């Protein structure tokens, strides 16, 4: 699929109004091409989650326009063009793992047998097939988040929106999840927009890192990450990786200097 998966033009977002209004985003322009892995990176308050939520039609922009696959975010949502993964796994605790993964398919009214087949396939993708009959509380945090990823992929969407999905995980689990996500990304060819506040995470995963800065939230710069694909364990030990970390870090520091 060619063309832009996400196009953001002149988007601003103000919460509240008048003197109490807080400008979360100011004049954001961003185009994400199909097949890219783009991270939105920045400190808290830079509006990265707000931007993702606008793309995902959970928030409306105050001004500017957004298209997802050439449609309005609302239409893209209704067409199930994207899957979302939140910081919390947000599993339904009364459903077993398999039925959590099937939830989106159930909502869209897919045939039961097809639901189960697709659900199994997604669980295999995140390597949790043996936990299909477990309840969420029986799984570790990392495993729960993998279930959430499987659920987001259940529609086989062309686009995955991820809002700090590994933010609550310990460092070891986090690195393992990143490797797994890389594998899923290569396997499925899904476009990913990934919100994070971790510099190493953004550099390791992304083809492009969008560095954002706060008050008001804006794009401070965009760093192309041309590290070799596939990204593997050794990628984190390569000197080019450290060079990119430094570029991103400098950009973040430079943006903070602005009052």
């Amino acid at each position, binding site marked *: 699929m060619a063309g832009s998966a996400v196009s953001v033009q002149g988007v601003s977002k103000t919460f509240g109004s008048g003197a109490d209004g807080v400008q979360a985003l100011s004049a954001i322009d961003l185009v994400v091409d199909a097949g890219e892995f783009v991270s939105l990176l920045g400190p808290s308050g830079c509006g990265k989650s707000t931007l993702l939520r606008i793309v*995902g*039609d*959970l928030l409306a922009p105050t001004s500017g326009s957004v298209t997802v696959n050439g449609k309005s975010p609302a239409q893209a*949502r*209704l067409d*199930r063009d*994207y*899957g*979302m993964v*939140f910081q*919390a796994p*947000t599993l*339904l*605790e*009364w*459903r077993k793992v398999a039925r959590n993964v099937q*939830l*989106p398919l*159930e*909502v*869209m009214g897919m045939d039961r047998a097809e639901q189960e087949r697709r659900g199994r396939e997604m669980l295999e993708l995140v390597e949790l097939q043996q936990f299909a009959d477990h*309840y969420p*509380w029986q799984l570790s945090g990392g495993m729960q988040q993998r279930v959430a990823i499987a659920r987001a992929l259940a*529609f086989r969407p062309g686009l995955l929106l991820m809002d700090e999905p590994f933010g609550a995980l310990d460092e070891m689990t986090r690195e393992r999840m990143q490797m797994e996500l890389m594998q899923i990304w290569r396997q499925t060819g899904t476009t990913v927009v990934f919100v994070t506040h971790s510099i190493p995470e953004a550099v390791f995963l992304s083809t492009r890192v969008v560095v954002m800065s706060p008050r008001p939230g804006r794009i401070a710069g965009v760093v192309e990450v041309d590290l070799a694909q596939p990204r593997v364990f050794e990628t984190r030990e390569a000197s080019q990786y450290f060079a990119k970390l430094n570029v991103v870090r400098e950009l973040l520091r430079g943006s903070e200097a602005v009052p």
Partner: protein
Amino acid sequence: MSRLRGYLPSVLLFVLVLATWEMVVRAFNIQRFLLPAPSVIAGTLREQLGVVTAAGLYTLREAVIGLGLGTILGSLAAFAISRWTLAREGMLPFAIAVNSAPIVALAPIANQWFGLTSIWSKAAIVTVMVFFPVMINMVRGLTDVEAGKLELMRSVAATPLRTIGKVRLPNALPYLFSALKVAAALSLIGAIVSEYFGGAGGSLGYYISQQAGLTRMAAAWSGVVVAVVMGALLNLIVSWSERRLMPWHVSVRT
């Protein structure tokens, strides 16, 4: 096995209380019309078993009808008002106020409305008593939903009806069951106390108040025993359904 062992302390305590009761009555030679010994009550219960259980079942029927109606109506009302913030804000404080009022005080009025010996005058009181806790808890259960879950449902383009079915309703189940545990006890209280104000000849409340009036204390107590057993039974049924319907819930995890 371990579950049986869990019950052991309460069983021991129960036996201990009965034994103490028995000994105190005998040792101080307490008059039978004041407090009959457990052995005497057991004897009377055995003699009167047919009459007392029939009365118990009659009253249980009133309680269960009221419990069912109150739960259904309370849940329906909760669905209706949880959909509209305005209705919720208007109704909920009112419901909480009514819920803390002694509804059983209406029993004589209900007797006038539905007939003294009718099963419906008692079932009506029970219905009202059950309605409010069920409605209040259901409203909370349907509305206290984690924001993330609602966003999830939005992101998968779920209709409001699907969101109710797949998120709000299961979310309300634990709330419903905690209401039902209270309501099960309330239903028997409502039915029996209503019968104290006058009820059908074959009802448990009528039986207890009649026997107590005639100072046949052992017989009155045997009626109380049946009431206690029925209360425990109702509670067991509710707990059992809870386990069956919510194997995922914290309270049920093993």
